[in-house]
């Protein structure tokens, strides 16, 4: 419903503006990227301290550039060891506290041309993004103890894309994307005392929890979850079909897990370099 509202509002704005049509061939772009992914986590349930770490991520992106529309599907993965100021040696959990953070991000965004700024060679697109994020953390402490915590949120929200060409008749372009989910379906909402929480009653703990957890999620909005993702990428082609994609991604969210008791704030920065092919 929100998606249709956003798209219909775009339609209204389109009808009210006179947009200069530019001759354009639709493109399908596939990009495989890697680089460095840096996570900073402050999970009040886990620790008063920040945990940080970097890892080499893997990202896959498909983009469709149509005459009026843009569609993007992307998948992003990394498994990062996070350390804090009290991490001493990774192998000695007796005195060391560290976290393994599995990060998965799957998203789709669709947008329609909303405005063209010819002087700036820039086109703006407005639409919606559907994104699903998992941050699964295993917090190791003392000798044999570990505690799992996680956020899994699937959100639908506003999406803004600008594309800027610095040279006419060139496929090279700078893309800036910003999205903010308005409503999200969140699993593990009550992971404070998760194993005794009311939400977890009637769960069969002898079976895998994935589907059972999925059924027990909650819809949340800005009152419990604020999330923003910004991507800046520059795609430049070295031949008609092959190019490179330099990308910077910032993902931040703040999620109140259990009333006012525990809040998780997660910041993920990524610098990616990818190879792009046009189909």
């Amino acid at each position: 419903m929100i998606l249709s509202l956003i798209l219909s509002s775009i339609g209204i704005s389109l009808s009210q503006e006179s947009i200069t049509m530019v001759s354009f061939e639709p493109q399908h772009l596939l990009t495989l990227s890697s680089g460095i992914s840096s996570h900073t986590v402050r999970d009040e349930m886990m620790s008063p301290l920040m945990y940080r770490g970097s890892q080499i991520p893997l990202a896959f992106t498909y983009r469709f550039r149509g005459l009026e529309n843009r569609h993007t599907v992307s998948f992003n993965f990394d498994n990062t060891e996070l350390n804090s100021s009290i991490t001493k040696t990774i192998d000695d959990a007796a005195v060391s506290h560290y976290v393994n953070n599995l990060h998965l991000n799957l998203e789709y965004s669709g947008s329609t041309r909303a405005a063209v700024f010819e002087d700036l060679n820039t086109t703006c697109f407005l639409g919606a993004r559907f994104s699903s994020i998992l941050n699964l953390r295993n917090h190791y402490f003392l000798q044999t103890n570990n505690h799992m915590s996680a956020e899994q949120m699937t959100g639908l929200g506003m999406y803004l894309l600008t594309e800027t060409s610095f040279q006419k008749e060139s496929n090279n372009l700078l893309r800036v994307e910003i999205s903010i989910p308005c409503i999200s379906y969140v699993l593990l909402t009550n992971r404070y005392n998760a194993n005794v929480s009311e939400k977890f009653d009637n769960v069969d703990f002898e079976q895998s929890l994935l589907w059972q957890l999925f059924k027990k999620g909650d819809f949340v909005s800005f009152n419990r979850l604020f999330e923003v993702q910004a991507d800046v990428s520059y795609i430049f082609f070295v031949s008609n079909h092959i190019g490179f994609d330099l990308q910077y991604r910032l993902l931040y969210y703040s999620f109140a897990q259990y009333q006012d008791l525990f809040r998780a704030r997660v910041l993920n920065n990524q610098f990616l370099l990818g190879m792009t092919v046009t189909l």
Partner: protein
Amino acid sequence: MTRMTRSSGILILLFAYYGCEQLILDPDPANVPANNFEIFWKDFDRYYAQFSLRHINWDSVYALYCPQISPSTSDRQLFTMFSNIVLGINDMHVSLYTPMGDVYWKSMIPASYPSRRIINACKYVQCGAPQESLFEYRTCQDADIGYMIIPTFSGQGEGLTIADSRYLVIDDILSQWKDKKGIIIDLRGNSGGNSVNAETVAGRFADQVRVYSYRRQKIGPGKDNVSPWKSSFVEPKGSYQFLKPVVVLTSRATSSSAEMFVMAMQVLPNVTIAGDTTGGGVGNPIFRELPNGWTYRLSTEIEADAQGRIIEGVGVFPDVPVITTAADSANGIDRMLEKGIEIIRKSQ
């Protein structure tokens, strides 16, 4: 792209990368005695559920110790203060772990407590080769009675499965013991673990879904912000449930999730709890850590049995009280196990 645009872009990205963390996430609290004390005290203030139950004025703890903290307070002095605080709460689920040692309250269990384990085992059960199973299970000298020790309920399943599959050995054991007239489950040294494992095993003895306990959780920052009472259930699990007489042996060393197992078994009509009162600490503890690397845990719950009796600091009362004294132990007599065998024989 012009050189200026390129430079501006790089500067913006560098600012975003390095500046965001400082802007969005506050810096870590410094590792100084005052911060360590504040965080320690505040965590208990926000998350500990049993102040009223244990008649503790937590603000007075702050008033007493805070003035003693200064930048020159040594680790040893801080350790002594924290130890006194932890021990003063009298909760077996409140503990402190430091390089200088671990501190936890254990005074409810007498120093030389013989009721923690089986005495003179081969007198009562058919001893054999060591078993690789998590449970130790034997046949009593009376071959119609099975005897099993469940030493712990700790462990977590792999992946996103919370129940530890090692506890499913109970299905194998019960399939071998279908013809037994009764089973004795020895929990005397079981200090708990994961309550899900306890419910997994208890379900193999349940005839129907029953409420076995009530709990209330800390749900807000105020000292008395606790949830309404919520029910915990024991329900039939596994392909076969053993519904013939069962005796569960308990002692003061039976605690935490093992007490949840005892409460779950106590509501079943075919089960008798025999032995000493259990340790009296369920509380669902959480672990926390300090800037100096010390770890501590605290209870976030209050647990009551099916009759509504709060067991925190009290324990679960056995249906048939019996203890093995030091004299019994010295004479090779396991009074509790003998009582268990007697109960099963009488019930036939």
